[in-house]
């Protein structure tokens, strides 16, 4: 049982940055923008957040700067795809290349200047320690499984829920969904398409950036690993998760933790003696492949049933040009 609880705990922790990335991308895709720059924006957030944490020792500033820098990257994407109507795939991929590149270069320079891997002070790290809720956190099993996480796990869940509620109940949410489905109809109904698209892309990008900072600061325990993959493909898993969660940030909470479980399953599966041997001894690569395989299956199923449960925004990946109407 202890093994299982440790596994559950680890799954939540590694699912959290995925949840940030997925929520951010859902916000962007709901307005019709398929931003393949998630990985790049997470990298930008990872460096910016880490550097600020290292220099200022302020948790608030670190994550604020991570949000703002990634949002700046998203602004670039928004300007190019929305105003200049460039191809979304190409622009997003370039944002990823650019984001990884610039963060690697700056991280390299930071490491050179520090004369070794920069390390955030333990005082800073202690502010991000798991929150101990008196009495509740010490309930056996439940306490460890649900009530003993660092603050950003809860923040990620809250953001995801808030965004799900916005889409479900608010007028703004309805407007964004309308834009994602049919921008010219939304435009005709008097919705400011450009403004909403910009806001969704930028705020979504900022949320991805927080996910990146979570990885560089919390997942990697406050040490910048120059040359190592800080974000290491989590941005791409987030793009996959958007499909898996069928464009719902509420479903993304569960999805992120399932995918989080897959990413750390390899360290725990061998200990689960209740499983048959052939599952316990399955190669690591199969577990790593599972998130992508599952996503593909979800993608296929949702397109085969497209008449019944089409959750993919109808104009996803297409630019809206008013004069084309």
């Amino acid at each position, binding site marked *: 049982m202890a093994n299982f609880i440790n596994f559950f705990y680890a799954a939540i922790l590694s699912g959290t940055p995925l949840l940030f990335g997925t929520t951010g991308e859902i916000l962007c895709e709901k307005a019709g923008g398929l931003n393949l720059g998630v990985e790049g924006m997470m990298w930008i957030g990872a460096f910016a957040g880490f550097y600020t944490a290292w220099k200022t020792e302020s948790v608030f500033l670190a994550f604020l700067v991570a949000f703002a820098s990634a949002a700046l990257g998203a602004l670039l994407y928004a300007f*190019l795809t929305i105003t200049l109507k*460039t*191809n979304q795939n190409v622009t997003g991929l370039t944002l990823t*290349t650019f984001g*990884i590149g*610039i963060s*690697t270069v700056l991280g390299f320079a930071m490491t050179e200047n520090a004369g070794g891997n920069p390390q955030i002070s333990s005082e800073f790290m202690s502010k991000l320690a798991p929150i101990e809720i008196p009495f509740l956190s010490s309930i056996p099993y439940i306490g460890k499984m649900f009530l003993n996480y660092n603050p950003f796990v809860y923040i990620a869940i809250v953001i995801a829920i808030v965004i799900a509620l916005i889409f479900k109940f608010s007028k703004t949410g309805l407007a964004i969904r309308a834009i994602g489905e049919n921008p010219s109809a939304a435009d005709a109904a008097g919705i400011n398409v450009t403004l909403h698209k910009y806001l969704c892309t930028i705020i979504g990008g900022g949320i991805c950036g927080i996910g990146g900072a979570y990885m560089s600061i919390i997942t990697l325990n406050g040490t910048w690993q120059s040359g190592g993959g800080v974000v290491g493909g989590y941005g791409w898993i987030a793009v996959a998760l958007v499909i898996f969660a069928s464009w719902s940030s509420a479903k993304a909470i569960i999805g992120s933790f399932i995918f989080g479980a897959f990413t750390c399953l390899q360290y725990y599966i061998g200990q689960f003696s209740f499983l048959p041997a052939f599952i316990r001894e399955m190669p690591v690569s199969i577990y790593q492949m599972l998130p992508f395989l599952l996503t593909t299956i979800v993608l*296929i199923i949702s*397109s085969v049933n497209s008449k019944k449960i089409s959750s993919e925004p109808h104009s996803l990946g297409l630019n809206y040009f008013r004069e084309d109407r």
Partner: protein
Amino acid sequence: MADLTKKHEPFVRVAKRTQVSTKKSVLLQISAFVLAIIAGGLFILLLGENPLEAYKHIIEGAFVGSVRNPLSSVQATVVRFIPLLIASLALVPAFKMKFWNIGAEGQIIMGGVFSTYFALFHSDWPHAILLIVMILAGAVGGAFWALIPTIFKIKFNTNETLFTLMLNYIALYIVRYLEAGPWQRTKGYASIGSIDDNARLPEVFGVHIGWIIALVLMVLMFFYISKTKQGYEISVVGESQPTARYAGMSVGKIVLRTMIISGAIAGLAGALQVAGIDHTLSGGIAGGVGFTAIVVAWLGKLNPFYIAGISFLFSILAKGSSTMQTQLGLSASVADVVQGIILFCVIAFEFFINYKLIFKKKEG
């Protein structure tokens, strides 16, 4: 009424240009490149390095070889150029058809997997036959990997961008599985080891013959796209599927055929990488080439000759900056930053080629 529309006319609006002079378009492209190089230089300056020196190191790193082998750097640059050019060419027909195949990475990997099979288990075949079979197997592997999302696209209109993206990762983990599983050379060490000498491509001018294949493909692709009936069909489907249907074309068949070609060429790049340079199969076989190829194909406006030029430029950047990293205290990822800036500048400039701004007329 007239007053009302005038009042609501925005200060500036955007309209598509119908005709663009080639001269103007080339001029804008070149100025975008120059601007990008300057912007990249400023970035290097901000990092406290001399941008001129950094660029000098990049150029030297890409062209000036060692004393023992003065051609070594050029050869290394060409080695990077081959897969990038082939993968970019692979995307030309797909993108022309507006089929957003971003799965070249996975198709390269699967090409590598299929050709490695013959390198590992049939290394006793006659040299020429083995190499031909390996290259063909690579093409089959790539085509197979491209076929899966294509069939679903045709049957159920499954989003091909997301599907091909997922297949990249599935292909990667298939290689990881083979490395640590059935094809493992030494127990406990995740590698398939080197392939037999018999399965390696010969070299011409110190670089494996893939460069000849790449250049031939470039010319063939140019003719295929612009001079053949099939190439014409691809453009019609890309412009408007209803038009293609109305003209009696079988859209499904054309999409299928085009994606087989696209995937096969990408797979070929994977086979050449295995037989020509890596001499093994590893997770890094494609190393992001499939993604860079998307950018290259786009920058080159799907023209095989432009694409070759841009592939070469990007290869210089990549090879040169890896040399620069060892000489200056500057990460080789500077290449990615400069590449990103180039593309951002070019696509931003492209806007002014394709659209014009119409300002609100002063009220008279």
